[in-house]
């Protein structure tokens, strides 16, 4: 998205061959391999918490890839939101449900082939879209950064304001939905122990309570 709006800063691939990669390109590929490996381990490991920790490696690897593409702001936001918050939420959920140390025999589901098919289809679509959109555009790493905070902010609030606002409305809807869900349960439970937990954690706690009862 950011790259597309700054097409002027990008060069055609005419001067770049795939047989004489620069140092940054080699690092980019290596980090990509590590990220892919961590992602595969995330979905194949039988140990639930290990899956969450491999997810940290995968998300962190993705942040490094953003950095190598000079998109510094996006990289730190990736770490802040995904590694710092989403994974902590995941681990919180795993701890609440007492994820065992060692293998979880029931971690496998019958939907494995279907999940694989969906994953492959999604990956193929994404790869196809990205290659079709950018083809052989190349980022000039020596010039001014194309992903600095200033450039990203200008692109976001000048060219992409509408999608940005639409996303805000989507998040607001999710927020309201979470509040509605947790309040409904509190009303049904009456003076249950979770009835007073009207905080962020309250939206999660009643659902776990529901499963246990």
């Amino acid at each position: 998205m950011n790259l597309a709006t700054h097409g002027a800063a990008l060069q055609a691939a005419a001067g770049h061959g795939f047989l004489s990669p620069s140092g940054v390109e080699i690092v980019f590929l290596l980090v990509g391999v590590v990220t892919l490996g961590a992602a595969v381990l995330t979905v194949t490991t039988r140990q639930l918490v290990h899956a969450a920790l491999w997810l940290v490696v995968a998300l962190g690897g993705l942040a490094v890839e953003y950095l190598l593409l000079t998109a510094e702001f996006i990289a730190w936001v990736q770490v802040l939101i995904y590694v710092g918050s989403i994974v902590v939420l995941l681990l919180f959920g795993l701890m609440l449900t007492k994820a065992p140390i060692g293998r979880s025999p029931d971690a496998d589901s019958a939907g494995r082939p279907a999940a694989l098919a969906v994953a492959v289809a999604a990956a193929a679509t994404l790869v196809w879209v990205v290659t079709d959109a950018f083809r052989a555009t190349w980022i000039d790493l020596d010039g001014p950064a194309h992903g600095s905070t200033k450039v990203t902010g200008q692109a976001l609030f000048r060219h992409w304001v509408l999608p940005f606002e639409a996303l805000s409305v989507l998040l607001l809807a999710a927020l309201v939905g979470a509040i509605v869900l947790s309040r409904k349960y509190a009303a049904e439970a009456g003076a249950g122990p979770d009835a007073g937990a009207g905080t962020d954690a309250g939206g999660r706690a009643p659902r776990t309570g529901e499963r246990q009862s």
Partner: protein
Amino acid sequence: MNGALDVVLRLIAVFVVFLAFPLLVGQAEHKVMAHMQGRLGPMHAGGFHGWAQLVADGVKFAQKEDIVPADADRGVFRLAPAVALLPYLLVLIAIPVGPGEGAVGQAIDAGLFYVLAVMGVGVLGSLMAGWASANKFSLLGGLRTAAQLLAYELPMLLAAASVAMAAGTVSLIGVLDAFHWWWVPWQIVGGAVFFVAGLAELQRPPFDMPVADSEIIFGAYTEYTGLRFALFLLAEYAGIVVLSGLTAVLFLGGWHGPFGSDGLGWLWTLLKTAVLAFVVIWLRVSYPRLREDQLQKLAWTVLIPLALAQIALTGVVKVVIS
């Protein structure tokens, strides 16, 4: 060649600070707590004022056997202290101590986001330790750590966003360059929110519920001994240094001071950091521990509204003066 040497020297300097300052804070905590609470123990070792207490502590930690519980997840258990400690070293690289290019480990364009993002990673160490220890008290400690993070992350980000709005940049050096003395009263509410939320992130009293020793032994660190336990303690003190330094840089003007800020600006940064670190220790000996629900209530009904009000105030003033 000169550039490479410069980078290496800066990294070495940051590393030395990272090794020395947390120990200084630890020593100060011993002494301040001893004076405030009339504790005799920390004033005994080595004779004069108990100067050797920290050395004795270090020797004690190094002598202890490194035990991994039989049922623990060995790999994660061993990795957790490093995950808890390293982020603070990385954050320290980006904190400017003085004016100009020479007084920061590495100038980072999105420095504010960098420090907040990397500081957040340190919490994963506590969570990993809590889960991998195969101990229910550790697990409870990990749970409390995660619940605490959900509460303080948002007010901390909002308070930091207020400063970024005021300065018009997310670079820590840029924030300091744009600083004027009247920012202190202007941003004081945001500063207080940031500092309190940071205390909760460090699990320092009065927000030490995740390691409440009278309830759950020592939370996520219950099963740790020897050097690995010392690493967790070091992470806590490094966290105090980082939080105090960040608060000083963002809200108190860092190297700006009433006089002498051109040549001796770094002294102002250190002075402000030291005073804030003292406040952190002071709070430990003077405030009772908050319960989980009290912390959540404080975060969602006090800190977040205050941070939002600060952002509104920042926006209004910014529009008026521009």
